[in-house]
């Protein structure tokens, strides 16, 4: 007797399978670096897959370089340092939280670093607060991280969206005009960046002629661009990031929109510029850190070290990871303790040393907010600069430490310290 196996994919089975497949996408791979003897562990929970994979990877590269440097200089409190890396995915807060808990509970990490995604950063900050561990946010820009939802033990290296908006708004008005149309990613980062630009631009006479919220991971921007062009703006302000930025700019330039309106935005990074064809590297933007700073101490050593590791120049993300990991060690060594409260107090108004700051001026963690107050670089994207194939940004103006930071009161952070 034989049993006939039905090979047919029924509709019901197909849909069940597709749903199962979608659910499985929630899970992701993980990477654990080599373990030493009783090291102090720094856990990094960052985007290694999805739309922010490239920028997330660069943050981990920067952090790893910092850990290597620390270990050559005595580590943290005389103990070796180990970086434990987990993939948070690019947009799944549940996974990011699960990985943050795993890093602290199972791996015994004393510090938490991450994340590119603002929403994931906020979720991880809550875990760090609950577990009483120092977290240094690397690249999640939404204001709330060091604003309305600030915690005494959560510090941040990258700028707030309001700081970026304050820095770039005058240049956008000057270079592109006053009528703005926004293309904004539909999550925490995009919402606050747009609102920051409306606030900063509004003071300078900006007129909003429209805007669209786009889901994270959007591939086709053509319909948004059609709508944006029809609204008759002076500038289409592109706030999407990562691969979404590449898709949007590439399609806008293919439509020839740059000949009709300005294409510009706020936050720009080297990673998307490198992924764009040369003719799409255009527009006014703000960089949070740029590698081409010829006369600034220690920058060349940093550039050389990263180039030796990766074959590429460092990006702002590389520096975020680098500075965040160093901040952990600096705080602990300064406090002579791994206790989160003592480190948090030691880092109030703490100034980054030049070999970590890698910029002119003295960036510092503003007390009562835990936000790093650094320089910003306003300029425009270029197809190819004099510094080589990865010199893709021309700096028009360096916005110096504090000039675009706003006040502590404006940040809306009301820090609660434990008794």
């Amino acid at each position, binding site marked *: 007797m034989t049993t006939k*196996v039905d*090979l*047919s*994919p*029924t*509709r019901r*089975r*197909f*849909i069940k*399978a*597709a749903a*199962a*497949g*979608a659910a*499985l996408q929630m899970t992701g*791979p993980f990477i654990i670096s080599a373990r030493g003897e009783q090291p102090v562990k720094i856990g990094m929970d960052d985007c290694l*897959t*999805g*739309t922010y*994979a*490239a920028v997330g*990877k660069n943050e981990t590269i920067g952090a790893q370089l910092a850990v290597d440097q620390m270990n050559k200089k005595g580590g943290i409190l005389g103990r070796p340092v180990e970086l434990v890396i987990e993939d948070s995915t690019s947009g799944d807060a549940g996974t990011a939280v699960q990985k943050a808990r795993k890093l602290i509970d199972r791996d015994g990490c004393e510090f938490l670093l991450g994340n590119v995604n603002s929403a994931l950063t906020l979720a991880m900050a809550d875990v760090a607060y609950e577990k009483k561990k120092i977290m240094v946010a690397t690249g999640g820009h939404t204001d709330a991280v060091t604003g309305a939802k600030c915690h005494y033990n959560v510090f941040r290296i990258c700028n707030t969206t309001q700081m970026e908006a304050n820095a770039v708004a005058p240049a956008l008005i000057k270079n592109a005009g006053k009528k703005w149309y926004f293309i904004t990613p*539909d999550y925490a980062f995009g919402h606050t960046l747009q609102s920051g630009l409306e606030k900063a631009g509004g003071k300078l006479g900006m007129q909003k002629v429209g805007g*669209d*919220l*786009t*889901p994270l*991971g*959007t*591939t*086709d921007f*053509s*319909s*948004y*661009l*059609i*709508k944006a*062009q*029809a609204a008759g703006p002076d500038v289409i302000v592109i706030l999407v990031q990562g*691969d979404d930025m*590449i*898709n949007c700019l*590439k*399609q806008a*330039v*293919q*439509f*020839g*929109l740059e000949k*009709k309106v300005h294409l510009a935005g706020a936050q720009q990074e080297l*990673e*998307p510029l*490198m*992924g*764009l*064809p*040369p*003719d799409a590297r255009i527009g006014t933007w703000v960089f949070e850190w740029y590698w081409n700073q010829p006369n600034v101490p220690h920058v060349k050593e940093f550039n050389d070290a990263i180039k030796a590791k990766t074959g*590429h120049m460092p990006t702002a993300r590389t520096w975020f990871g680098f500075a965040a990991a160093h901040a952990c060690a600096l705080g602990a060594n300064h406090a002579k303790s791994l206790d989160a409260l003592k480190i948090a107090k030691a880092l109030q108004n703490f100034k980054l040393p030049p070999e970590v700051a890698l910029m002119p001026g003295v960036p510092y963690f503003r007390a009562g907010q835990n936000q790093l107050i650094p320089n910003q670089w306003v300029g425009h994207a270029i197809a190819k600069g004099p510094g080589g194939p990865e010199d893709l940004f021309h700096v028009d103006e360096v916005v110096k430490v504090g000039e675009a930071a706003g006040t502590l009161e404006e940040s809306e952070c009301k820090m609660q310290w434990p008794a």
Partner: protein
Amino acid sequence: MSQVLLFNVFNGLIVGAFYALMALGLSLILNLSGVINFAHGGFLALGAYLAYTLMPHIGFWGALLVAPILTAILGLIAERLLIRPLYGRDPLYSLLLTFGLAYVLEDVSRYIWGAQSLPFAIPSWLTTPLSSQFFFLTGYRIFMVLLVGLAVAGLFIILNKTRLGMRIRAGTLDLETVSVLGVNVRILRNLNFGLGIYLAGLAGVLAAGMLGLQPTIGTSLIMPSFVAIIVGGLGSLPGTLLGGLLIGVASGVTTVYFPSATEAVMYVMMGLVLLVRPRGLLGEEGRVQ
């Protein structure tokens, strides 16, 4: 507003044609072999990366010709080594295998070409809009629609006019009988899989011209393709084409009125179709093959 709406309907047809190209490959494999190929996006990415690698040597047009063929060869190998042993088992086995294969292909792409997006440039004369008013009708997009049309026509000719196509269609209806009649079903399935992957490779090269070339380029495009199959009707190639066009237009029109739901609308549409007409718009009732 009416002009924006009209533009978005046209634009939606263009985008939908692209979804359809990818969905047709998926549908072809699903219909004959019963394999829900989650690795389709991975093959799409491979096609794009192969084209990127070949372009400096043989130019865009050469890459457009060669990369999909190389992708199809990789597909033939994958079918022979990985998929074939799973025929005769529950389709869930092949689903899980292709799901894993998708991750493997993504990581292979990341390992070889890096996580960083690569600047895939198309000939500049192709990016010129046909007119100032209809700026979204660029030479590249028109070319893409023509190519999709050609691929679809070619596919229909293969399926309806050639011996291979007739066998594939017959196999889709009753593989056991086709086998009993002396047709080598193994080769048939292998070639059919290769044909589906060829379409994925072609879609990959076309996609890289419009999107950033990164390892996840296929992942983001695979769900609309599945939706196109379900909306159009499982088992129906014309239905898949229709499904692709419909979700493209629906997304475009939604952008005008409710932009943040542009992606969600295709899933709403899928839900509605499943509620009102579970077999899909052009699917057959009952047995779906």
